[in-house]
Every structure is written in structure tokens, then in C-alpha cells.
């Protein structure tokens, strides 16, 4: 069949990246990318418009009992499109972003980078298309591995290398959970595939297996408390990579969860509640931790956790809806979650690309060192603003649409709900609104401190606007964001279809119809808002043109020698908040007190940073403990022959003894 052969050819050609001459590498990779995107997108659009296809690749002999078949159903089609768009934009952006590294690094480094990028993309596509267990695990790991190589692009930095490796390990651990889950399925059904899940679920309790899968996928997706790799890896990676990782790669975890849920049959209520509560925690804590970050990309990373939480809330509601037989709730929940996957992939990648441009311009990711970039790099600033508004879920941008759907699922299910249900729902409503508020707090801070006011450092002072090749891709993303925000009905309709087909909820013309109508109204409101704003601005311009306009210094309350140092910093902006959130965040300050005898206090520096409680207590401590143990065990290589013989001697005696005592 043409499709599969073409795909295989692309896989094979990807190896040539190492061969082609240096100047050609980028374009060669781009060519492959575009070709593959055209191919797979055509598959998925074909799926969404018509019937599903399956493409068999002649990989995996029967020895492992697996056949590598690319199956495309609604869910995979959706994810394919999401992946393709972000990956393409990311790579276009990368051209400008990687320019400065060309002097430092030899061609091989770039080949590895492009190759890994290609394979990250390919493996993500395969992840969403493959049903067979072993094949899935392999591509799942390839995804982790390629992203690992992408993260450590700047590998001379020991810290980056450390981060990358811990990322790799955590991905590996997650893989083992999925592996065990699959093996259980195989032992029961004889098949190791997503298709066999239904059979398993029909015979056994669903919760335990689901929890295994969930643990594995949640590590990838970054649900708290399994998120610990995320805020480390994203800042370490180059920005186009972090954009792709945060935009689409962590969504693969979501995909897996959805895939498993699609074939679950019992235990739905408890499952839904678990997902919902974990997501609420992730959402709230994620954004709470985001606020106190000074590293721009780290802040964005924590926001990915928050958004994963929002997606999770949607999914959880969907499951609860299925459990309580509330079709509308599950439809809205799943649809909201799915749409938020798309939205988040857009605005988060946009924000990360922006952060990259800022990093290149100001040579720092610490927002305390930036400021006043609005005047120096206006395009980036505007795009960042668009992204922030979208991520805060403010109309008329796309974030609002998905959050609206989720909200409506909750509000709609309130009337006539049972006591516990309504308590749960009202709780989540409050939490979601709190998330929204906190997000606004965080992004007013981020945008305000980074782009507004006066520059706080030399580099920020003479920052230059990013090149065209970095701006245009972002413009495309921003345009899509605005389009989804204003033309939501066009987008939500297919999403509804996907959801109804995937979880076969049965078509619900009432709900879908009603909501397309509502969304039309929202678009109308957005339109009115935009028009009003435009007229206001026009009139304002007219008015100002007829009145005298002058500029002067910012009013300093009578103090005239103001310096940029006096501006409000990110720390001081979050000061009040810190007071409230202290118990949860454990922000630590480092300052040296002024001594009694110090008449003329010398220079001091004030340092405040908050590290991740979960990382410290759930990952670092146990890991260090075990490794200490292992190191203490490893004392046998004494270099003394008699010891070496002794080990054998003792081992034999012990085993003999055990054998005598019939223990083994």
C-alpha cells in the first residue's frame, strides 16, 4: 500500500541526516518533516471525514508475536494533527534559534539534534497510531530517548546533562508501569495490545490495571506528584524543543489515559473521582508554584502542569459523566479536555518560543534581569501577550473556549445531582476559578516584569528583536489561537464528533446543537467586544489628535532621581502572595543580617527561591538513600584473593544449607 511504503521511506531517509552536507541538513530535515506531515495529516483528515484506515508496516517479525500496524481512529487522527502543527512550527522557529550555536558545535551535534527531532516527531505519531503493546512500548521509549537527546543539546553544561539523565530515568520508570500493565493484559487475554484491554476489563476489576496505566502515563503527562521531571527538563532544553515537549509530548500521556479510558467498563465513578482530584491538585499547585518562579521557562513549565490539570479535570468529568449516565457531562468534559489539549499545545508552544527569543535577546532566563523589552522587541511582546491571555483563559482567545466547555459541564450537571456529586463539582468549580485567578496573577507578573517598565540589566537594555524566521511561525500560531477563540463553533463541532465516536456516547444532537449555538453567541460577543474596542481606540486617537499630548517621567511622588532598580520586581510583585502560600511552597530567603557593630553596612545580596516539595521528598530523598545503600554494599572488590575465594565458599555453604533445610 502506498501510505505505509511512503512512511517507511521517510523513516529510512531520516538516517541520511547524518550524511547530507552541513548547509543542507536543516532543509533536508525540513523536507522530510513536511513530507511526513503531509502524508499523516492526509491520513487523519481522511479519517475524520471518512472511514478509518490501517497501514501495516513490515516491521516486527512474528518472533515477538507483534505486528506493527498503524491504526488511525478519531482520537489518533486528532492527536496527529495537533502533533504535526506544533512540530512543524517548532522546527521553523528552530532555524533562527539555533543560529548562534552554529559556531560552537560541530556538524555531528546538529545531525544528532535534527535526527532526534525527526524521531521525536515520528515516535509521537507512532505512539498515537500503534495498538500493539510491544511496538507501543518501543516507540514510547524512543520518544523518551529522542527527547532526551534534544534536551541535552547544550550538553557541555553539567547541570543540563544531569537534568536530561534524570528525565530519561523517570521516563524509563514510567515505561515500566505501562509494561507491567500490558503484561498483565497479555497474561489474561494472550494479546498484548490496546485492543485487548476491553476483553480484560470485561473480566476483571478495572481500577488496578487502570491505576498502573495511569501511573505510567501520568509521569509523562506531569500530574502532581509525578511531575518532578517536568520543571527541570523544560528549562534545560532549547526553546523550540521545550515548546514541542510541553506542547505535544506531554500530551502523549493524556492520549494514553484517554486510550485506556475508552475501553474501560466498570469502576468508572471511582476512577473519575481519582482523576478529577489529582487534576485539581495538579492545577492549583502547579500554578501556585509557577507564581514564585524567577526562571521564565521554569514558570512556563509549571504552567504546563497546571494546564495538564485542567485537561485532567475535563477527562475526570467525562468519566464521572459516563459513570452517572450523564451524557452531556461526559461529552462536555471530554470535549473540553480534548480541545484544551489542542489549545494548550498552541499557546504553550507559542509562549516557549517567545521565551526562547527573550533568552536570545537578553541572554538570561531570569525575569529579574529583564524588563522594558516591549519597546525593544514589540512583536515578541505582543505575541507573548496573546499567549498569556490565551493561557489565562480570557476571551476572545482559545483558552476560554475549552475552559468554558469544562465549566458548562460542571454547571450543567449541578441541578439534580446527588449531594456528594454536587459538593465535588462545586469544589472543582471553585478550584478552576481559583486556577484562573492565579494564572492571571502569574502572567500579569510575567508579562509585566519581562516586557514592561525599564530594563533591569545591560543585556536587556540593548536587546534586539528576534529575526523574521522566528517571528513568522509564532504569528501563525497566534493567528490560530485567535481563530479558535473567535470561530469556536467550527472547531468544537468536530471535537464533539471525535468524543462521541471515541467513547461511543451516542450522538447527542441536543447538547451539540445547543453548544454550537452558545459558542456562536460567544463568538458574537467576542466580535462585539473587538468592534467596541476598535471604535474606542479610533475615537481615542481622534481625540488625542485634537488635544495636546506630552511625555514626561513617570510620577515619582516628588522623588525625581528614580532608577530602574526601584521598579517592582517579580519577587516583590509576588510578595503578598508568598505570605499566603508560604506553607505550601516553602520559599526560602537567604540574606545576611546587619550586625550590631556594622556602622556602614557593606553590599549585601538577597536571594529567595522555592524548590519543589514533591521533588525533594518523593524523589530526591529516597533515591539518594538507595544509592547510598548500594554504594555501601559495593565493597567486595578488595583486591585480596582470599576474599574472592571466600565469597564463593560462603555462597556455596549458604546455598547448600538452604538446600539441606529444603528452603529452596
Amino acid at each position, binding site marked *: 500500500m502506498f501510505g505505509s511504503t511512503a512512511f517507511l521511506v521517510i523513516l529510512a531517509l531520516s538516517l541520511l541526516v547524518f550524511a547530507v552536507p552541513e548547509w543542507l541538513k536543516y532543509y533536508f530535515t525540513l523536507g522530510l518533516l513536511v513530507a511526513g506531515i503531509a502524508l499523516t495529516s492526509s491520513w487523519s483528515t481522511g479519517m475524520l471525514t471518512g472511514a478509518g484506515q490501517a497501514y501495516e508496516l513490515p516491521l516486527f517479525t512474528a518472533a515477538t508475536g507483534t505486528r506493527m500496524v498503524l491504526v488511525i481512529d478519531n482520537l489518533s487522527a486528532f492527536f496527529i494533527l495537533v502533533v504535526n502543527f506544533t512540530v512543524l512550527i517548532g522546527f521553523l522557529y528552530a532555524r533562527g534559534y539555533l543560529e548562534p550555536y552554529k559556531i560552537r558545535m560541530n556538524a555531528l551535534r546538529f545531525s544528532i539534534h535534527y535526527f532526534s527531532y525527526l524521531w521525536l516527531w515520528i515516535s509521537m505519531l507512532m505512539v498515537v497510531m500503534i495498538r500493539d503493546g510491544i511496538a507501543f512500548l518501543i516507540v514510547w521509549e524512543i520518544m523518551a530517548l529522542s527527547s532526551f537527546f534534544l534536551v541535552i543539546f547544550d550538553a557541555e553544561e553539567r547541570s543540563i546533562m544531569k537534568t536530561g539523565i534524570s528525565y530519561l530515568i523517570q521516563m524509563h520508570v514510567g515505561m515500566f508501569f505501562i509494561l507491567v500493565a500490558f503484561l498483565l493484559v497479555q497474561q489474561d487475554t494472550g494479546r498484548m495490545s490496546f485492543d485487548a484491554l476491553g476483553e480484560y476489563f470485561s473480566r476483571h476489576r478495572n481500577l488496578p490495571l487502570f491505576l498502573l496505566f495511569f501511573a505510567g502515563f501520568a509521569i509523562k503527562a506531569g500530574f502532581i506528584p509525578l511531575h518532578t521531571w517536568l520543571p527541570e527538563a523544560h528549562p534545560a532544553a532549547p526553546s523550540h524543543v521545550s515548546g514541542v515537549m510541553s506542547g505535544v509530548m506531554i500530551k502523549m500521556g493524556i492520549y494514553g489515559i484517554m486510550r485506556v479510558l475508552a475501553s474501560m467498563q466498570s469502576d468508572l465513578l471511582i476512577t473519575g473521582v481519582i482523576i478529577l482530584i489529582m487534576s485539581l491538585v495538579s492545577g492549583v499547585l502547579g500554578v501556585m508554584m509557577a507564581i514564585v518562579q524567577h526562571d521564565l521557562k521554569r514558570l512556563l513549565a509549571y504552567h504546563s502542569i497546571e494546564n495538564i490539570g485542567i485537561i485532567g479535570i475535563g477527562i475526570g468529568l467525562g468519566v464521572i459523566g459516563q459513570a452517572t449516565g450523564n451524557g452531556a457531562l461526559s461529552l462536555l468534559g471530554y470535549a473540553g479536555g480534548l480541545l484544551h489539549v489542542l489549545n494548550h499545545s498552541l499557546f504553550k508552544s507559542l509562549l516557549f518560543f517567545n521565551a526562547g527569543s527573550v533568552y536570545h535577546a537578553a541572554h538570561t532566563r531570569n525575569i529579574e534581569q529583564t524588563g522594558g523589552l516591549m519597546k525593544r522587541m514589540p512583536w515578541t511582546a505582543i505575541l507573548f501577550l496573546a499567549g498569556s491571555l490565551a493561557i489565562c483563559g480570557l476571551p476572545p482567545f482559545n483558552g476560554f473556549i475549552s475552559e468554558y466547555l469544562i465549566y458548562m459541564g460542571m454547571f450543567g450537571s449541578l441541578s439534580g445531582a446527588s449531594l456528594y456529586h454536587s459538593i465535588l463539582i462545586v469544589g472543582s468549580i471553585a478550584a478552576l476559578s481559583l486556577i484562573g485567578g492565579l494564572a492571571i496573577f502569574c502572567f500579569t507578573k510575567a*508579562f509585566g516584569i519581562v516586557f514592561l517598565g525599564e530594563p533591569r540589566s545591560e543585556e536587556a537594555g540593548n536587546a534586539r528583536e528576534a529575526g523574521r524566521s522566528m517571528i513568522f511561525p509564532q504569528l501563525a500560531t497566534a493567528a490560530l489561537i485567535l481563530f479558535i477563540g473567535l470561530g469556536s463553533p467550527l472547531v468544537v463541532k468536530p471535537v464533539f464528533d471525535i468524543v462521541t465516536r471515541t467513547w461511543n456516547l451516542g450522538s447527542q444532537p441536543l447538547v451539540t446543537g445547543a453548544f454550537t449555538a452558545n459558542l456562536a453567541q460567544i463568538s458574537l460577543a467576542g466580535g462585539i467586544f473587538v468592534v467596541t474596542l476598535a471604535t474606542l481606540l479610533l475615537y481615542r486617537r481622534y481625540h488625542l489628535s485634537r488635544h495636546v*499630548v506630552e511625555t514626561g*517621567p513617570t510620577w515619582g511622588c516628588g522623588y525625581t532621581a528614580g532608577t530602574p532598580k526601584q521598579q517592582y520586581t517579580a519577587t516583590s*510583585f509576588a510578595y*503578598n502572595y508568598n505570605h499566603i502560600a508560604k506553607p505550601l511552597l516553602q520559599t526560602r530567603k537567604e540574606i545576611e543580617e546587619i550586625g550590631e557593630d556594622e556602622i556602614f553596612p557593606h553590599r549585601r545580596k538577597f536571594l529567595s527561591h522555592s524548590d519543589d516539595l514533591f521533588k525533594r521528598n518523593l524523589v530526591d530523598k529516597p533515591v539518594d538513600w538507595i544509592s547510598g545503600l548500594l554504594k555501601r554494599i559495593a565493597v567486595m572488590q578488595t583486591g585480596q584473593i582470599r576474599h574472592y575465594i571466600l565469597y564463593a565458599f560462603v555462597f556455596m555453604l549458604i546455598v547448600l544449607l538452604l538446600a539441606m533445610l529444603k528452603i529452596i
Partner: protein
Amino acid sequence: MAGFILIAVAAFFFPGVILRTKSIASGRKGPAIFQPWKDIAVLLRKGSVFSDTTSLIFRIAPSVTLATITGAMLLLPFAEQKAVLSFEGDFILFAYLLALGKFFTIIAALDTGSSFEGMGASREALFSMLVEPAFFILIATFAMFTGYTSFSVIFNHFFITGNDYVLIYSIIGAYLLVQIAMVENSRLPVDDPKTHLELTMIHEVMILDYSGFDKALIHVGTYLKFALYGSLIYNLVVPAGWNVILQTGLFFAVQALFAMVIGFTESFRARNKMNKNPKFILTLTSIALIAFMVILILTEKLA
């Protein structure tokens, strides 16, 4: 449409009434009702001064805020009259539009690069963030109680449920709305617009650098916002379906009452200590939870 116009009209009297109340309470005669609007006219006649630190954001922010408020006004019904835009979940749009306006006010304040305004911005952001849940829980209780998710329908069915205890609930709701309005418009006890020390301001300090047209827009926005909340309160306490004249009368009565309440609070109450404010705002959330309990009882889920 009626709702929209009435709110606009009410906005004309609202600030004046507040001023009058305060001056009478402090034993002065006080300015004319329309004095605030005269000030705005003055502002419109003046030119403007912009800080050379500021950028585009600072210039467009007031217009955006005003636009969001007008957008929000379109979502509010009056009596049986549906709002201009009425659909399921319009209150979500309502809240988020106002949030959008707030967003721009805050970043505009940060745009000036002045430490005062940054301080104000941080406080504003924090408080408005804390007040969000209260509002949403309140709305949630509406939805639970009536089973509808649109302002117009909710308020139409509010008193039709035939449940006599509704009154208790609507009083709590009204109280909550008043407090939320106070916070959102940064009046006492959270913030005192008449204070003279920048360090103790919230909203006023954020607009220190505005002048002329933009400042006028900001003031207009504030007044409209008051009326906005006023009409929400009105819809909550007055049953729909009486005749229109009476309704209109009651509408203005409620608005006036609301204004006077604000006036009296401001004349007889001192502003909170700044770091007491979060606690105060969180109490609103807990009160909202009480309202939720009440609804649980009213809908016989908790019995």
C-alpha cells in the same frame, strides 16, 4: 437591551449618590449629583501626559477595560427582558470579561515602571484573584437552585420555585454581591479611594499616571461597573414578572440603595489593614460556601 440602557442610565447617578451620602453623613451639603460627570467632562477637555517609560499597553489599557465592561453589560438581563446576549453559561463570559479588563489595568500599572504602581498592581491582582471563587460558587448555587445556566433564565425562575425560604438565600446572595462589588471596585473596607498616601492605595495608585481622556475612560468604567453589580443585585432580590414601571422604579431604588450602602460604609468604617485583606476576602468565599449549604438544604439534598 433594556438592561444595558438602564445600567448606563444608573451609572449617571451612582457616583453622585455615593458622594452625597458621604457628605451628608459627614454633615456637609456636598456636591451636585452629576458632579463626577462634570469632572469627566473636564478631563475630556484636557490634554494628556504620558510617561516616557510607558509603551503601547499603557495607552490601550483603559479602552480595553471599558470595552470589557460594556461587553459585560450586554450579558445582564432586566426583569423578564432577556439580555442582548443570553446563552448557557453567559456568566462565565461575564466574569472572564471583567477579568480581562483587570488584566490590562494591572499590566498598564506595571508599564509605568513606578514602584508605587507596581505595588498597587500586585495588590489588585492578589485580591481579585482571591475573590474569583466566591463569585463562581455563588453562580454555581444559582445554577443548582434553578437548574439553569444563563443569567436571564436563572433570574426569571428564581422566585418561581415557590420555595418561601428563597428570601434567606437571596439576602445572603445580595450581601455577597455587595461585598464582591466592593472588592472589584476597590472601595472600603478593602481600599479607600480617598486616601492621600500612595503606599496605602490599591486602585488609585495604579492609575496615578493617567490623565485626560484615558483617565476619563477609567472613571466611566468604574461607574458602569458599579451599576453593573447593582443590576445583578437587583435581579437577585426583585422577582421578575411584575409590571415594567414598577420594575424600573425598583431597579433605580436598588441602585440608589446600593450606592448609599457604599456611601455609609465609607463614612463610618475604616479601611482594613492591608495584610488583613486576604483574610477578609477569603471570608467571602466561606460565606459563599454557606450559601451553597443553604441551597443544599433548599433543594432537599441535605436533609
